[in-house]
Each structure stands twice: as C-alpha cells, then as structure tokens.
C-alpha cells in the first residue's frame, strides 16, 4: 500500500467524524460567539449590539446566583461522590461470586435510569406529605421539610440524588483500578500482619490514586454542566433562586426568547470550563502524572 492510498483511506475514515464535528461542534461554537454580540431572539435575526450583553452579564444578579449555585453543586458532588464511590468499590471488591454481582447490581442500577425516572422516584421519596424520607427528616428537624422548595435544602438534596444516580459508573472505574492491584502486594502485607486501615493507607490509596484523579476529572466536567436534575426538581418552584448555568442559558434563550443574551451566558460557561480544564491539566503536570 502506498502513501497516497493511505492518505485516501485515512480521509475516508475520518470524514464522517470530522464532518459531524465541524458541522455540529465547530460551526455552532463560532456562531455562539457571534450571537453573544447581538440581541437576536432564539430564532430569527438580531442586531449587532457590541459588548452590551457582556456589560449586562456583569450586572446580572441571576447570573451570579447561577455561577455560585453551579460551583456549590460541584463542591457538594465531586469530592463526596468520589469518596462514596471509592468506599462502595472497596466494599464490593471484598465480595466474591453471586454475592458480588447482586450487591454491585444494587449500587449500579440507578446509573442506567433516565433522569426523569430518578426525579419522579426521589420526588416521591421526599414528598412532604407522603414521602417516606420524611420519617427520617421529621425526627431530626422536628417537622416535615419541603426539601425541593427550601433554599437551604435544595442543592444538598439534589447533590445527594445525583450521587445516588451517577455513582454506579465511578464504582466500576474504582473496581477496575482495585482489580489491577496485584494480589501479591496484599499477601505480602497480610504476612506482615498489617491492619486493614494500614493496608488501605499504604497500599490501596496510593495505587488507586490515578483512578481517583480520573474519576474526579470526569465528575468535575460532568457536574459543571448540571441541568437536568436542577431543572426538574425546581419545576413550579423558585427557579431564580436555584438557578444553575446551563439552566440560565435555557431560561434566557428558550423561556425568555433572548438568544443573544443566552449565547453570552453560554460563552461564559465555555470560558469557565476551559479555565477549569487548564487548571486541572497544570495541576496534573505539576504532580507528574501522565
């Protein structure tokens, strides 16, 4: 096979992906930047307004709330979710055979459910009148709590539900990491009579660290883009108070018919995520990973 046919084959093979990539990713991204300088509605032409949208953005209280809530949600989910995932993986990894399969299934099953199902299930769990979770909340707080209506409860509750829902995947990643640790290391440790905690601290934790970083990275990217759960649980409620960034894009463009301003918010989200990526990349480089 000569060089030319190789190039031809390569072009044919990359063509579908590159076409989709350019048409549905590069082009919309550039258009988003353009749109953020206009006052266009969702559908239809707008006028060039220069930096007007950006000025507005910096004075926009709801935008600030959305940024804050998004970060708050990230804090509530990323590290706690990763730790819970690791904990469960450690517990499951000890088990063998059908027992392991069953227990793993119990932990993994929520992950495969659509978010709407998760929403309906937990809305029912937390229902202020008939929700079974109120049997736990009431003795502690003293009264039933409308968790998805109270500002203080909303984000923690949604974070809890999110960890419950998405953790199955993290558990699998951790299990994979744990299985890659050679049994001989543990045997050696056992011969030396090391306690469970010492084994974890000195062997498991350092060896599982790369997977932990992977899970943290995936979680961080995922949770910055939070929309579905927050949108659904805040339906009919006080959306402005519980707003997150993607939801604000949606609200401006689709609810309020402000395509240009919505694109400005979208651009801000873009910049935030790129900033996070660069920071994380630098952090990893400094640690000497990868």
């Amino acid at each position, binding site marked *: 096979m000569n060089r030319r046919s190789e190039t031809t084959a390569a072009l044919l093979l990359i063509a579908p992906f590159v076409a989709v990539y350019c048409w549905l990713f590069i082009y919309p991204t550039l258009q988003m930047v353009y749109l953020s300088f206009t006052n266009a*509605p969702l*559908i*239809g032409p707008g006028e060039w307004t220069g930096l007007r949208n950006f000025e507005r953005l910096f004075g*926009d209280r709801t935008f600030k709330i959305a940024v804050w809530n998004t970060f708050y949600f990230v804090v509530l989910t990323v590290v706690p979710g990763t730790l819970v995932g690791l904990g469960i993986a450690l517990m499951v990894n000890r088990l063998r055979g059908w027992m392991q399969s069953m227990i793993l299934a119990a932990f993994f099953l929520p992950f495969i459910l659509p978010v709407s199902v998760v929403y309906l299930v937990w809305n029912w769990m937390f229902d202020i009148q008939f929700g079974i979770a109120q049997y736990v909340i009431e003795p502690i707080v003293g009264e039933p709590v409308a968790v998805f*209506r109270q*500002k203080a409860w909303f984000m923690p509750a949604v974070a809890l539900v999110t960890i419950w829902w998405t953790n199955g995947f993290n558990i699998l990643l951790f299990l994979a990491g744990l299985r890659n640790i050679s049994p001989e290391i543990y045997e050696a440790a056992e011969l030396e009579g090391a306690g469970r905690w010492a084994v974890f601290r000195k062997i498991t934790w350092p060896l599982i660290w790369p997977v932990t970083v992977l899970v943290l990275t995936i979680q961080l990217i995922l949770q910055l883009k939070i929309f579905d759960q927050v949108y659904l649980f805040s339906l*009919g409620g006080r959306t402005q108070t519980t707003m997150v960034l993607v939801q604000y894009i949606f609200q401006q463009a689709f*609810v309020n018919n402000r395509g240009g301003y919505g694109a400005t918010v979208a651009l801000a989200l873009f910049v935030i995520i790129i900033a996070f990526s660069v920071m994380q990349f630098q952090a990893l480089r400094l640690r000497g990973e990868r």
Partner: protein
Amino acid sequence: MKLSRAILAVPAFFAAVSIAEAQTEVVWWDFLGGGDGVRMKSLIDEFNTSHPDIEIQATTLEWGVPFYTKVQTSAAIGEGPDMMTYHTSRIPLAVDSDVLSEITADDLAAMGLSESDFAPATWDAVQVGGAQYAIPFDTHPIVLYYNKEKLAAAGLIGDDGLPTGLDGIENFAAALQKLQEGGTEWSMSTFTASGNFQFRTIYSLLGQQDGEMLTDGEWLAGENKQKLANALKVVSDWVGDGHVPAYTEYPAAVALFTSGQAAMHINGVWEVPTMVDLQEKGELFEWGAIELPVFFDHPSTYSDSHSFAIPNNKDNPISAEKRAAVQAVISWMLENGLFWATAGHIPALNAVTESAEYKAMEPNATYAVLTQNAIFDPKSKFAGVASPMFEAAGNSFTASVNGEMEAGEAVDLMKDELDFLE
C-alpha cells in the same frame, strides 16, 4: 368506451368516498391539569362525537413555564399545534415574541362572534395595538373556599348563611385564631410553596390599596412599593403566625382543605369541580366559595382569562381548511360555555352569563359579583403567566411568604429584578 369510462370512474368514486370520510385533524394543546381538565376532556370528547368531520387531538402539557416555553419555541420553528388555550394575561408578551396568529374579522364572522358578545374588559384583554389575538373563553378569579361547619362553630357564619367578620387585617387574623382554637389543625391552606401562585393573592391585596405594579413603564413607582410590601406582609403573617402551613404544594394544599384539616382555602375557581365531585360522592362537608375579604380599602380580586389562540407557525402557516376547523371548534366551545361554568370559571360569552341556568348555578352565583372588582395583570410584555414578572414573584414571594425574608426586603429584591428587565 363504456368500460374505460367505468374504469376511470372507480378511482374518482373512491376519491369521493375518502373525501367524505376524511377528517380534519385539529392538534390542540392545553395546560388544564386540575379539576377543570376533566371537564375539558369531556367537552373535547363531546365535540369529537358530534363532529364526524373534525377530530381534536388534544395534548395536556405541564401548566405554566413548560407549556409557554414549548408554545414559543414550537411556533418559532413552525411545529406548533393548530390551536391552544392561552392566558389572556400573557398576550402582550406573546405578541412581542410573535407567537400568535392574528384573529381577523373573517375569523370572527366565520365563528359568528362580535365585540358585543363579550364584556368590555374581557374583549379589551385580547387586543394589542388594535389587533385581536385570541378569543376569550372564561374569566377565572381566585376565591376563598370555606368549610361551613367549621366556620359556623367559630361563629363566623352570618344570618344569611354566608361567612361574616372576615374583613380587615385584624378581623381576619382573629378569625384564623378562632378557627385554630376550635380544634382545626390549620385555619387555612394555600399553595405556599409557589411564590408566583401567591402573586394572585398578594396582587389582589395590592389592588385593594389601589396599588399598581407598573405605572407608565416604571415598576412599583412611588408608594406602590410600600403597598406591595403591606400586601405581602399580610400573607407572610398568616404563615408566620402558624395559621397557614408553609411550603405546601398544590395538591397538598387542596387535600388539606378537602380532608377537613384546613378550614379555609385560597385557590382559583377551577377547583370548584373538585369540590362538587367530592360532595356528589358524599365525601365532602358543606362548603362554599366567596370573594376574597377586604383587607384594605375596597374589594379587589386578581383574575385572569383563558382564551383560545392560533399559533403563528413560522414558514408553516395553518391551511384554510384547518383554520375553518379551528373556527368551528372555538365557536362550539364558546357556545357550550355553560358546561365550562361547571368547572368554576365564569364564561366569557354574555349570552351564557345572562342565561337563567347560569344565574342559578352555585357557587358561581355567589362569587359572580366579584367580576366588577376583578383586576388583571398589567398589560405589558413582561407580565402574565410564565412571564419575567411571574418568575420574579416566584423568587421573592416564596422566600417571604415562608419566612425566609422580610416583606420589605423581598419587595426590594423584586423591584431590582424587574428594573433589570429589558
């Protein structure tokens, strides 16, 4: 020759048959999920049975923001329904975003309707800039539902059999106190989890002080800010003093009243059918519904209207044939307004409200007087159901009604949000 003619005639025959059988499908969207939704379902069924040539295909979407978001985006891309129910309060906003198709003089003529068939305020509400954008179907204010036995026990039923001693902020608070002392768990229930629902009550109380949300393009100008805070404080105090449960969801608020755990209930007239149906089954106490008491200077009650509208589907305008079918549907629905009145609503058509049957209908007749005191959303592209003002109310009022924030602070927050709109 004869044979070929016969062969030619066959497809023509089938074509004729299929035209005769062809139904015009009317895709219909509504948001009626309460007790009135059941009534609407039976109206639609009845229409479909009595009109073999037209078939209404109805979809009920989530009330409020989800419904209007879907309508707006679908019309913008030409994928909207053929017709829909629409809140009159939102028409200026809809016109601003070009969502509605104008109702022409031809449409009105085809439906056999004219301005004189409606009350002036009702008619005016569907006009923007000299053009008409919807056909009014009803008016639906909020009312005060009450449990007659409980009010009687607390000495709050007068000689005429109607509640008494509820007017005035202190009197009402005293009445709430008495009801609770009488052993009722809650004096009153309402959808406190939703600030934008509470807007209806609070706006009524603003109207009782002659306050306005929007004055010559300025939000909460001058004293109006204080008046709104006064109104908000009344509602917040009910919750703060433990008479009304906080953060209550819609179905729970209704259930608290119908189960007898709350003696009174503020809600729209659309829950009348729920009460009627329960009472018919023998599962409800003796109840009634009255106009909101006067807390400030004079009676005033928030009201909105359901209307029928045709979306302005971009690049995909409705065909003449469909439009004719839609006209037929609308005019039939209006004529059957008497049945719609059993859903609690006040029908829009004068011919219906003036009929002897309507005048005898209870509890509608009791609260029919309030149409004179009805106030509507400001006519602005920022107001109406699922509008920016509605969202701002949801934000501030939820916090204040449930005791997270002082009334004055909540109103400041709301004004800031409203002033930021453009």
